[in-house]
């Protein structure tokens, strides 16, 4: 993984001291509240319902065991012994005090972690594919490009006061696990007809109040032009994006208002002015960053082991876990494994300090000291030798990190909701618990096949419910919590926005409604069909009739 240079380290250390001084001046009354709000958000600090919430960047989801131990320590020293993985591969602390944040950040800086641009109207931390570098058929590893973008975006002097937040995702694979079509900019590695590797650039995707799928503004961008092209997009947006209405200030609204063609013309005109400037990437620079993402030292004879096959044959639960929670690796004898942060009665994405320390130890023993966070709020060990899978599984079971629910409705993505977030209209955690309790028969879940269920507590859509196969959105109706269902969304390569099923239902009826949807699906699916494909085949109408049928 990327190793910080002295200058990278100096930058985050200086940023901590800068923020310490900003906090001091705010507490001394020298910075007005409205101004400090912007400053603290640029440094990841929200003021939430109960306490501040601090979001720490995990750039493109990549963590070392040392960093995870650092996060565990901070959760003990400054918080209540747990933390929450977010839908953008970052991690949040819910209880630090405003006064203690500079010290907390100084501690994290010792393990090369920071909160730079994890919130606010600036370029947010870059997200990518959690299986980068290990899946077969990848066009190119997206992580070096994510790192190059991170460096360029970090404290960029021109783009710290954008009209609104700005999110960039990078994928190197046909199969999209980074949801690039619902980002402000989606960067897809691709090849042109002569076989050169470059980028397809999508702009103006996003969720929230006005969900939109990103539009392609360039089919092929040469690699050395990545930063100049991104800078051109950002400059056009910074100058022309709306600032009069925060609900209309994302780049998707600008792209939609101008039309993708006119927007592209503006970007290309700006880009022509700067493509040969010092933003042009040299091959030396590209190679240097790629050098940090070389494969670990895989063992050549890993597939010669016979214990794995024996355990698969003799231990059904282990075999189920392998089938559900692991992925094929491009190197024979290795698999990638998901550690599910979806305990039955737990908040999706939450981990305790004890779990973090234990996972760090397991990563050292079995996974080259590396941990990845996913946008589905799980963790991944990307390089586990097959002989190690059984002992790893046993230890994950003891940590409650081995529930074999990946891809089922128990693997739901859930935002913090009304319990923590001051924007939320409705609770999400209690509803998630209700759903998990109702649908706890794993064989039934496996029979249903892959279903992406996501629940957001408000229209800001932090859980990306619009692009869920089944989306649930919490809404406030005269002080009561109601939940609206959408069906047929996807954030994968076949991205689509879900359509609203019908009128929202009260909290007590969410699990019943889901049950009706699933019952009808089982009834009408063609054998082997995924839920999303059934919805695409028949539309919402049969589901709507079934859910809202008057009981006789």
């Amino acid at each position, binding site marked *: 993984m990327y190793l910080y*240079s002295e*200058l*990278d380290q*100096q*930058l985050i250390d*200086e*940023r901590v*001291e*800068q923020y310490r*001084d*900003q906090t001091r*001046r705010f507490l001394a009354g*020298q*910075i007005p509240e*409205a*101004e400090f709000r*912007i*400053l603290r958000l640029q440094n990841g600090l929200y003021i939430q319902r109960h306490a501040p919430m601090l979001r720490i960047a995990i750039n493109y989801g990549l963590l070392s065991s040392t960093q995870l131990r650092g996060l565990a320590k901070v959760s003990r020293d400054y918080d209540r012994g747990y933390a929450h993985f977010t839908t953008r591969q970052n991690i949040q602390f819910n209880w630090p005090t405003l006064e203690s944040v500079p010290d907390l950040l100084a501690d994290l800086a010792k393990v090369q972690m920071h909160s730079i641009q994890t919130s606010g*109207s600036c370029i947010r931390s870059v997200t990518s594919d959690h299986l980068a570098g290990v899946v077969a058929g990848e066009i190119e590893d997206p992580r070096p490009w994510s790192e190059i973008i991170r*460096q*360029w975006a*970090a*404290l*960029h*002097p*021109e*783009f*710290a*006061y*954008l009209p609104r937040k700005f999110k960039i995702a990078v994928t190197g694979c046909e199969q999209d696990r980074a949801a690039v079509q619902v980002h402000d900019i989606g960067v897809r590695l691709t090849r042109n007809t002569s076989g050169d590797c470059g980028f397809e650039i999508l702009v103006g995707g996003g969720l929230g109040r006005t969900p939109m799928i990103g539009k392609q503004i360039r089919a092929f961008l040469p690699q050395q032009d990545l*930063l100049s092209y991104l800078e051109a997009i950002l*400059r056009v947006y*910074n*100058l022309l994006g709306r*600032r009069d209405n925060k609900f209309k200030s994302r780049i998707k609204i600008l792209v939609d208002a101008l039309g993708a063609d006119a927007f592209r013309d503006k970007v290309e005109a700006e880009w022509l*002015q*700067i493509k040969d*400037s*010092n*933003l042009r*990437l*040299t091959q*030396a*620079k590209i190679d*240097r960053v790629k050098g940090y993402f070389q494969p670990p030292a895989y063992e050549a004879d890993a597939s010669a082991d016979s214990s794995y096959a024996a355990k698969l044959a003799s231990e059904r639960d282990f075999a189920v876990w392998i089938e559900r929670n692991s992925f094929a690796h491009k190197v024979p004898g290795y698999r990638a494994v998901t550690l599910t942060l979806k305990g039955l009665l737990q908040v999706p994405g939450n981990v305790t300090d004890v779990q973090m320390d234990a996972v760090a130890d397991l990563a050292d023993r079995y996974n080259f000291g590396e941990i990845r966070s996913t946008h589905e709020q799980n963790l991944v060990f990307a390089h586990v030798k097959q002989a190690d899978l059984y002992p790893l599984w046993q230890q994950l079971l003891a940590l409650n990190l081995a529930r074999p629910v990946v891809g089922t409705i128990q693997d739901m993505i859930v935002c913090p909701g009304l319990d923590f977030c001051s924007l939320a209209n409705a609770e999400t955690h209690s509803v998630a618990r209700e759903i998990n309790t109702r649908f706890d028969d794993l064989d039934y879940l496996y029979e249903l096949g892959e279903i992406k269920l996501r629940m957001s507590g408000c229209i800001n859509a932090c859980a990306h419910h619009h692009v869920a196969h089944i989306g649930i959105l919490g809404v406030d109706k005269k002080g009561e919590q109601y939940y609206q269902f959408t069906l047929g969304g996807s954030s994968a390569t076949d991205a689509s926005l879900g359509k609203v099923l019908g009128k929202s239902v009260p909290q007590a009826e969410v699990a019943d409604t889901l049950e009706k949807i699933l019952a009808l699906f089982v009834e009408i699916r063609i054998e082997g069909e995924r839920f999303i494909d059934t919805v695409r085949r028949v539309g919402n109408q049969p589901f709507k009739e079934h859910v809202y049928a008057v009981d006789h």
Partner: protein
Amino acid sequence: MPLIINQQPVSDDRWISILDAEQLAAQAADADLIVAWDLYQQQPQALAERSGQLGLAIPNDLDVTELTALLPRLALIAVDFPSFADGRAFSQVQQLRRAGFSGQIRACGDVTWDRLRFMHRCGIDAMQIDAQRYTPEMLRAFTEIKVRNQAAAGDAHSLSRQQDALNDH
């Protein structure tokens, strides 16, 4: 109003800001004026005939390519930050410097400690600061963060990062 030029406080400012025709008429022909863009457009000829230096105060929604032909005649451009959330002028300044404008670019409006470094990095060399928000300590803003991950206006090195310049030499 306190003024910082090239990261140092400056006590004498010869420039006079002109918002309307009446103010303009009251000025001596050799006074150096910062004229509002609207006013300039009404009487470009009259302003061209003056002997004093000309500066323009532009709104932050102006497409600065409209100024291209005018740049050789301007000694100063004042850009506007109407609020602490508004960062359009950062991009205007980048474009002005790129177009070769080498006169003074002066930040006006919501100009405070925590944006001085970004302003400087984008190519703003003069900052006009509300007296209530000015303190001598705020000059620290320029050195709080010394690492540069982006090349800025006027940087000599040819790569995108200070880091790369070090690695490649």
